């Protein structure tokens, strides 16, 4: 790791210290984990897509009766209409 200096305002520092105290960590770890989240978001890895395809495959397989996409969409619309009727 390389030492890096950044400027934070008082409010940011106060809140970071609160979270660090609450979680039993330190402010540097919090800042590094926030940066990790930003970088994961901006430079997505293939894992996100792989995970999505796995989840989707499991769901499609577990939907019994072989409902078509049109039937699923119709079911969604019925649910919404029912919710609106009962609201």
């Amino acid at each position, binding site marked *: 790791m390389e030492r890096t200096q950044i400027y934070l305002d008082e409010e940011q520092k106060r809140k970071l210290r609160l979270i660090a105290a609450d979680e039993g960590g330190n402010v540097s770890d919090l800042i590094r984990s926030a940066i990790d989240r930003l970088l994961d978001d*901006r430079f997505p890895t293939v894992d996100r897509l792989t995970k*999505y395809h796995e989840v*989707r495959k*499991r769901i499609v397989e577990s939907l019994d009766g072989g409902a078509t996409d049109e039937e699923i969409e119709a079911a*969604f619309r019925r649910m919404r209409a029912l919710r609106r009727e009962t609201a």
Partner: protein
Amino acid sequence: MPRVRVVADAMILAAGFAFRNPGSASSRFIQEWLDGEFELRVSGKLVGEVVKTLDQLGLERPDVQGVVDVLCFDAMAIVTLRHLRMGCSDPDDDHLLEAAVSSRAQFIVSEDRALLNLRPHVLRYLRARGVSVVPLGRFFDALDAVRRQPPFSCLIPWAA
């Protein structure tokens, strides 16, 4: 270049996981998001709606949990505290508008007629905050248009 920020309604998110066709528009929406083409914003209420929708399809808990994991870990979570009445004909849709405005999203993506035909004063309110409500097809067109823009053109407020 700042990426487009998007709020999608629960039906689109649920369909993205439940539709058999991996090439469906809902599935493409999820894939483009996970590919980093835009930022998806979700609120607790929205994730709750997706869960409810999938529950009603009869899915098992672990499968629904898988969806929640993808949405909660990869989307930008936003907190909507105020539960404002935004003027939707169905008050249950208000949270989507609140989520879009509070997260400064440019798009609400929905195939729901009630959301696509908001009252004029609601539309004016959203437009004034740079939010457009569009169906999936128009959203993909808008996304393509953004991709074709030269660098720094994002400084122009294109979401009129």
